[in-house]
């Protein structure tokens, strides 16, 4: 496979091998880094290693410390304690314009008074690259993001997606060893966002640089990053792949932040083999194949798509009875809301192609699921 093929037909878009001569990423180490404003802790002391060339994403609600971590990395703010190493070199006190980081901002931050070509040439000029070389590198940067014939246009004349591509080209044209992206797609509409996600993934594959991708959109993180760190209240709560985080959330925050989670309040817990038997506050006894070691085993977490809805009592490990209160269809998925024990409404999803039973609202139904899809988790 080579890059040229992808220009032939507009329908085709496929991964392109790493271009030779491009930088390889550097690892980043955060060592006990922390940021205080007065007595308020914007970022609790944090240790984190991002591997060379890794696509790493940070997600979390606003105010969780994402922006602080990003500002510390780019050099916009100084750490209160600890330091950061890029490629093993301590960058404490190095100003942003000497860190050689490529940064992509939410609203692109293209210079409106410069043309697209001048925008992309800017970081090369700042580095004293000879004029002739600049022209060819600008051209190849634009080709890399699949934009052509826009060199002499002003950013304002481009669409949002095109502007974002220009911003990517500008942030990567000087081969930074690290690219930091701050919600780069949040200003785009949904369809364009999905297309750009794929583009950014491909760009990362081509450049091989380390990427730190900050977003509040879990879907974006899940579809792009190898590892995801979830932040909340100034600290990293859990790190893992999208799959690990979804299937094994360590606490209630992570479970509820990623996708939909049914959380059943636990009253008591006994070990059972390698697993456990939990008694919910509603009196149900539910089996989990996984035990729980932490303190405060407060919730049973069951994902909506793990549940099956049936009219007759099913033969599954765990069964709960309830009344359907809502049933909606969206994009191939039927979603039921079931009120159990008159106290808690749980969600159940099923793709309609495999759905056998769609009960009316008000029907008494059974929800059944396997012990291996049941997780005991703590409060935080």
């Amino acid at each position, binding site marked *: 496979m080579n890059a040229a093929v992808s220009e032939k037909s507009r329908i085709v878009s496929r991964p392109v091998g790493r271009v030779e001569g491009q930088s390889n990423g550097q690892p980043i180490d955060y060592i006990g880094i922390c940021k205080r404003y007065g007595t308020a802790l914007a970022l609790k002391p944090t240790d984190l290693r991002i591997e060379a060339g890794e696509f790493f994403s940070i997600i979390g609600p606003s105010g969780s410390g994402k922006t602080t971590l990003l500002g510390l990395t*780019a050099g*916009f703010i100084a750490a209160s304690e600890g330091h950061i190493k890029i490629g093993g070199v301590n960058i404490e006190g190095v*100003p*942003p*314009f*000497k*860190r*050689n*980081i*490529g*940064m992509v*901002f*939410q*609203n692109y*931050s293209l*210079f*409106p*008074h*410069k043309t697209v070509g001048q925008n992309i040439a*800017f*970081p090369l000029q*700042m*580095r004293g690259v000879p004029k002739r070389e600049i022209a060819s590198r600008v051209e190849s940067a634009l080709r890399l993001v699949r934009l052509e014939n826009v060199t002499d246009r002003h950013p*304002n*004349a*481009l*669409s*949002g997606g095109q*502007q974002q591509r220009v911003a990517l080209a*500008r*942030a990567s044209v*000087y081969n930074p060893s690290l690219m*930091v992206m701050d919600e780069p797609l949040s*200003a785009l509409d949904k369809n364009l966002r999905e297309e750009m996600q794929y583009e950014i993934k491909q760009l990362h594959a081509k450049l091989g640089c380390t990427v730190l991708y900050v977003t509040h959109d879990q879907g974006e993180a899940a579809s792009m990053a190898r590892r995801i760190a979830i932040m909340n209240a100034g600290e990293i709560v859990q790190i893992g792949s999208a799959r690990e985080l979804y299937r094994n959330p360590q606490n209630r925050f992570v479970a509820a932040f990623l996708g939909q989670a049914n959380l059943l309040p636990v009253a008591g817990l006994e070990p059972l083999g390698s697993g456990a038997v939990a008694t919910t506050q509603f009196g149900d006894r539910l089996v989990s194949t996984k035990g729980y070691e932490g303190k405060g085993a407060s919730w049973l977490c069951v994902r909506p798509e793990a549940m099956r809805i049936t009219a007759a009592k099913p033969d599954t490990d765990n069964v709960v009875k309830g009344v359907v209160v809502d049933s909606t269809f969206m994009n191939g998925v039927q979603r039921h809301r079931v009120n159990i024990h008159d106290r808690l409404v749980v969600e159940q999803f099923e793709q309609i192609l495999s759905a056998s039973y769609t009960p009316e609202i008000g029907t008494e139904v059974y929800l059944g699921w396997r012990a291996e899809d049941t997780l005991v988790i703590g409060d935080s």
Partner: protein
Amino acid sequence: MNWTLFDRIAKLVTIGFSVFGLVYLLTPILVIVPISFSADRFFSLPMHDISFQWYDRLWNSTGYLLAFTNTVIVGVVTALIAVVLGTLAALAVVRGNVVFGRVISGLVMAPLVMPQIILAIGVFPVVASLGMLGSKLAVAAVHAAVATSLVFTTVSSALRGYSPNMELSAMTLGAGHIHTFWHVTFPMIRLGMMVGAIFAFAFSFDEIIIALFLTDASSVTLPVYMWNEIRFQMDPTIAAASAVAIVFSLSLLSAVALLQRAGRNQKSSTETKL
């Protein structure tokens, strides 16, 4: 919604204000311009002849020429001082970490609200004791105190009009402080600086009280000269001078309108595409 209360007001006001505005704007023009072209010493309707004699006299009057030159010099110096100080103040208050930003803003805006007669009365003994009465620089310095707030306003709003991320972005791309200012900040506030400079010049061009107190025969400015002329004689030369001043003021106003439209276009196209 083509029937709301506001639209009824709109119709009323469109007609009312067109008349009102035109009357106030055109009254001076309708009164002054015909007089300036009259052939008679004393103006009377209907006009008998059109004549350029008063413009001729204006052009040959060393007094008017000196006053006009002085006014332009004072105006340009005022604009220069105001642009430098106003821009610095705006950068500090809007972008910097100023502890007392509000207080600074208040101080910058203060000369604008101080009655000019009081500013003049207060400044007069100070300038006198410095031996600078009659100095054009002194007039420009006092004018600049007021005009700085005008530049501060226009540059502040230009700075508020774009995200500070633009400058952060330039820095991550490798631009140091000076390059960041030169390649990003300055192009973004250029228009605001120009509009502010024109406002500063126009203010100085029109100002009379401070100039009355601080100028002498050699440094007299146009409004002061016209004021002195009018007190002693109602000579149509003054109508010719006024007509020239009107044209001058309206040109400045048009320049501002054009610059602001250019700015709006640039901005709106940014917004619609985002």
